[in-house]
């Protein structure tokens, strides 16, 4: 073996290695006929669930499964780039709030023709709220894999320590009772309630008061209407006037979950998707229905779904995409998801896999089935990112007490109305494209 390598040989080898790396890098990814799908994943536990999904897909379809997992914060950007460049997977996961956005842009295809042509697929096995979240402009654009209402978590240990009777497992407490309890449980280093200072959490209170962000036609903002204003004022008072919430330290990193896990907060507003994280708490806890306002207990119901990009070609590719979508949202797959405790599955037949603890976890399905309290589908527009961005700019200042609620709402309403008009334009364009 020659021990020395000449400069020329070294350069040649380096060039060859570079060429090899470039060829590898420029390869076309998974072979044709593979089941490719995209999903967000931000932790090892989440990754494990999707790996199990992948194994399940391979068992069911008999083809190789290639999940593209991306941290949730970067998922929409990566998905956009893949959709634009024609490199998106056959099936992509979508957050329910973005389904109208992608559908209106023509990024994903309607599924109604595929559903109608497939007698094996039973859309009725999905919760109605999940089906509403997955639809846009009268068409089904996605099939749900999880759906859940916002619930009220409470620190059982803390309430028992103060000799306070535990809240009813089925009857939502009125807002006034909730406020009194939150005030009673607030003391030095201890707080009655925590939620995120953002529209995603605020909207549950607005729905419970009978209000909404926009009117039914989604062509005008209704945050300035009495019901919505009263709801926002109620929550802001909890922060600013009653001071029953932990002080806001930073608007970006503020986390109701981390506040609740400290053990010194009595109530937290959140979804059952946090059950898996709250199980790490060092105190006893449970969930109850969301407090009832003037319109009852009708908090936000949100969920996520799988959809097929418009770029998937008709024929064998579309057939595989549909089979994959059906497999990813099948009872068997959603059982894996629910057993891991990630969230409530979107299928009624997979519901039993989402099991306690906490003791009262069953209310999630009872709420969705209309047996206990109620829920309100998260109403969004085709430009929800912009709406959220606008509300994210101006509303947090009310939580800090820097701007009165009425002033903030009056200031942002004209801009919200412009966004509603843009939404109407998007809907019109989508309808025209469909025709």
């Amino acid at each position, binding site marked *: 073996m020659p021990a020395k390598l000449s400069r020329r040989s070294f350069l040649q080898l380096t060039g060859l290695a570079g060429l090899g790396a470039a060829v590898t890098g420029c390869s076309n990814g998974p072979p044709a006929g593979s089941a490719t799908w995209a999903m967000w994943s931000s932790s090892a536990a989440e990754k494990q669930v999707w790996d199990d999904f992948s194994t399940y897909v391979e068992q069911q379809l008999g083809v190789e499964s290639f999940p593209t997992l991306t941290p949730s914060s970067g998922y*929409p*950007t990566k998905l*956009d780039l893949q*959709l*634009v460049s024609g490199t998106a997977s056959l099936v992509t996961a979508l957050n329910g709030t973005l389904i109208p*956005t992608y559908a209106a*842009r*023509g*990024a994903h295809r309607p599924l109604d023709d595929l559903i109608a042509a497939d007698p094996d697929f039973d859309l009725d096995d999905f919760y109605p709220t999940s089906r509403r979240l997955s639809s846009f402009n009268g068409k089904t654009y996605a099939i749900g894999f999880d759906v859940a209402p916002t619930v009220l978590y409470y620190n059982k240990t803390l309430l028992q320590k103060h000799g306070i009777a535990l809240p009813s497992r089925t009857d939502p407490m009125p807002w006034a009772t909730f406020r009194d309890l939150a005030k009673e449980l607030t003391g030095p280093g201890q707080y009655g309630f925590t939620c995120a200072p953002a529209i995603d959490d605020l909207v549950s209170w607005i729905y419970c008061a009978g209000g909404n962000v926009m009117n039914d036609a989604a062509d005008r903002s209704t945050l300035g209407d009495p019901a919505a204003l009263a709801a926002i004022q109620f929550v802001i008072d909890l922060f600013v006037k009653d001071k029953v919430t932990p*002080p*806001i*330290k*930073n*608007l*970006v*990193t503020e986390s109701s979950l981390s506040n609740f896990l400290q053990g010194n907060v009595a109530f937290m507003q959140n979804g059952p998707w946090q059950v898996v994280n709250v199980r790490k708490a060092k105190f006893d806890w449970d969930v109850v229905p969301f407090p009832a306002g003037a319109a009852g207990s009708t908090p936000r119901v949100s969920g996520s779904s799988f959809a097929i990009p*418009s770029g998937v070609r008709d024929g064998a590719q579309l057939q595989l995409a549909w089979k994959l979508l059906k497999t990813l949202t099948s009872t068997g797959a959603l059982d894996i998801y629910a057993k891991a405790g990630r969230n409530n599955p979107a299928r009624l037949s997979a519901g039993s896999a989402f099991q306690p603890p906490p003791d009262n976890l069953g209310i999630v399905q009872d709420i969705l089935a209309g047996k206990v309290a109620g829920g309100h589908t998260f109403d969004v527009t085709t*430009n929800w*990112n*912009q709406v959220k*961005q606008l509300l*994210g*700019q*101006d509303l*947090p*200042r009310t939580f*800090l007490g*820097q*701007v009165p609620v009425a002033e903030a709402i009056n200031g942002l309403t004209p801009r919200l109305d412009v966004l509603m008009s843009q939404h109407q334009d998007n809907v019109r*364009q989508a309808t025209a*494209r469909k025709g």
Partner: protein
Amino acid sequence: MAIDTAERTATKTTAPQQPAPRWRNRESLTAWLFILPSLIGFLIFTAGPVVAAGVISLLNWNLFSPPQWAGLRNFARLGPDPTFWSALGNTAYFTLLSVPLTIVVSLALALLLNQGLRRVAVFRSLLLLPYATITVAVAFVWIWLYIPHDGLVNAVLGLIGIDGPAWLISDGWAMPALILMSVWKSFGFGMVVFLAGLQAIPQQLYEAARVDGTSPWQTFRNITLPMLSPALFFVIVTSIIGSFQVFDQALIMTNGGPGTRTTTLVMYIYRTGFENYDQGYAAAQSLVLFGFIVLITAAQFTFQRRLVHYDN
């Protein structure tokens, strides 16, 4: 006419052979080969996108639907858009405060390190660490430092009897908080450039000044500063360009809030283009930012003829 033609013929035959064009010289060819990778990179990743932004700014394009011709409508939208003007004002505020502060701090530290201290290399490395650290990581550390009640910054202020503000959620203090963090993060670069410039100043100039009996301030003003002016000019130009492009720290530490108090132009461009999918409007904003940077840099180059002293 005949003479003229003859003269021309004579000239043609007697003139020395024309040298090959410069680009065909071996030396020129070698130079071009060396420049080529950088030139290709510049054309693909800088000039190309600038031209593409110019074209996209004239379109309505959401990335998915076919683009539609918009003419100058995207530029017309800038006028009545309060967030754009707010972002522009915030960026200018950031630049006006952060650039002078960074230069003063980095120059002061460079002067200190140039005093022949022992273990200068160690101090230099330590002071360069913030610059070498990833902004995202630094931003998260500073979020903790700025926590209103328990944060280190307010704890230190408390020791001297000052009740510190709620930095990152305060209307008035959020931007100064970002500026302070950015100065800390970037002074290392200027310091190294200034230190190199200081060490290149001929010592005989200082010896002459000593002989003339000048004060330290006179020496600094009349020798150090003029001799350092090329380095100073370089740091000012790069700092201003960098500060006009401020993005990551604002996104992580305040997400542009409270309200739009820390929304910078690049952040707004990013949101317009990649969160709101309004590529045409985002490109129009980018071109305005590009125009500002070009204008300011051109003004700096004009002034440098009078204020910057080169050896030759």
